[in-house]
């Protein structure tokens, strides 16, 4: 009886310890901040400093934040699912150090971005959209068969967006 009491205490202690470490982890990783849409959240780690800096110096800065282009905007559920997938991939890459100095968008993310380009610039691309239906598709991953940024190469991050491209970027500049 005594022994089992003892075990219960130890088990409770371990459980409490786990909860404490979990809370610390949530706090240290600023996990809850990832629920927001603030672009600064995307440079909690330094990996995307260049993408932040180039976006911040682009014309899109005034109109669209990171999530406006990179996550689906048609439904909240889709947005959260995409955010979770990206978040998981980013966490794994960051923790295991498997990312390179040049990040590339996944096909899944490319499709979302292209959809967002089209939805904001709907009027401008309406005719193109119609025409694209009639011609051979170059790329099955994205609507219209060719990625907007294959031609609009500077939008919005510029052409060289290696981690080393913005060495003098001192983190976040409050505007």
């Amino acid at each position: 009886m005594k022994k089992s009491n003892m075990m219960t205490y130890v088990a409770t202690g371990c459980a409490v310890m786990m909860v404490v470490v979990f809370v610390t982890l949530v706090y240290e990783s600023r996990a809850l901040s990832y629920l927001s849409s603030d672009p600064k959240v995307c440079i909690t780690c330094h990996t995307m400093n260049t993408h932040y800096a180039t976006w911040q110096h682009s014309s899109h800065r005034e109109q669209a934040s990171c999530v406006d282009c990179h996550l689906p905007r048609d439904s909240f559920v889709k947005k959260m699912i995409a955010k979770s997938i990206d978040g998981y991939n980013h966490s794994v890459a960051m923790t295991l150090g498997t990312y390179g100095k040049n990040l590339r968008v996944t096909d899944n993310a490319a499709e979302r971005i292209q959809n967002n380009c089209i939805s904001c610039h709907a009027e401008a691309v309406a005719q193109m959209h119609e025409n694209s239906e009639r011609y051979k598709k170059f790329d099955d991953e994205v609507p219209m068969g060719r990625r907007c940024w294959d031609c609009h190469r500077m939008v919005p991050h510029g052409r060289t967006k290696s981690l080393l491209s913005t060495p003098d970027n001192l983190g976040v500049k409050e505007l």
Partner: protein
Amino acid sequence: MNKSIIVIVVSVIATVLMLLLLGSIRGNKADQAMINTVPDIRELEPRSAEWGKYFPRQYDSYMATKESDEIKDVLKKDPNLVVLWAGYGFSKDYNEPRGHYYMLEDNINTLRTGAPVDEKTGPMPTACWTCKSPDVPRLMEEKGELEFFTGKWARWGDEIVNPIGCADCHDNETMQLSVKRDFLARALDAEGSEPFDEATHQDMRTLVCVQCHAEYYFKKTDWEDPDGKEHTAGVVTFPWDNGLSVEAIEQYYDERKFTDWTHKLSKTPMLKAQHPGYETFKTGIHGQNNLACADCHMPYVREGGVKYSSHKIGSPLDNISNTCLNCHGESEEQFKQIVERKLERKEELAAAATDIIAKAHFEAAKAWELGATEEEMTPALMDIRHAQWRWDFAVAAHGGFFHAPEETLRILGTAIDKGHAARLKLRIILAKHGAPEYEGPAFSSKEKAQELIGLQMDKLVDEKITFLNTLREEWIKKASHSGKEIYDPKTEVKEFKTSYADEK
């Protein structure tokens, strides 16, 4: 019991994994903090090389202003200028500006700053250093602005040892653009249309340049030091109270009866215009569209994957494909031709103006010689004052022919008009005093013109060379041994280049 064991095992495994993750997150956060660390640079650090340790590309491009090293003697090109500035330093020596790297060297070498033998001699006041060095904001901070503006130029010779550099435009912690000379903010506020506090980042990309590239004068300001001693400072002041136009500034000076010097030949109370670059730029099409100086003079360049703003400030025409062609569709060749033609138009009218004004000075001198009275002469002299002021305003605004061609040509037009008005009045006076057909002496070179106005050039040059080999050397020695850490041997210009001598 089984339950407890399961809880313990799961908790321990989860805790260990979470601790590992926590360690990794802390490591990443430390990396991020290190990347975001602000460079450790002293406030108002005058040595640009110290900033260059953290910003090597910007520093290297700044140092490349060395390449603009040719001495172009403006007096040689148009000897009329010697006559226009008779009695004033500019008649002795005046070259086109070289790169930022040479700014201090050229200020020290020019015959205009004379040949002081100690800290209390020489023709110029301390204000002549104002735009030459980041040691100036440092001194203003250390000594106070009025103290800085008091005394002779030679007073700060051993303190001012770095040419214009990083600290003149940047904050040491954030690298944000910052204006280090208070007189600019005072002038903008006095003018009123663009108060300094409302300046945007785009405005700052012009205003840091305007600290120096604007018309100014030394305003006599009395002040009392803590010991109760009276001093008079010559404070750099932008005359913008009435507006930025050539007429508004002329009116400002006339209202205050301000004169830079009295002309040696014509006795005219003269004004000297000094590079009203900003005032002129604002009236041109690029200024009207709110471009900043940095948009064309500091274009973005790419080095490997890194993009940064070039600090090799100079003519955008040296790099047309990265400057003009960012917005314009023409070819480089077409651009060069368009701009060259603009320059020719300005030079044509400027040459006409200097010819007329030089003649007017000689004719006024003759009229005085023949006994003309002050009452007779005053209206003609005021015309000379205004004519020369306007011509000077148009040509001293470096790049004015391009920044604002219409305004520049308009100003030159009014200069010619005023010059002719002066000569018409003088012709009547000369006729009255028996010399209706007087013509000023002819001169074909800078040297002849200098002789004509009574300058002893050999003596001036000898004295200057002596100064450079004595007091100047002492300044460098003092600055490098003062223990203040202000001297950087890299700023020492190796090759001695002036308009008056090939070696020291």
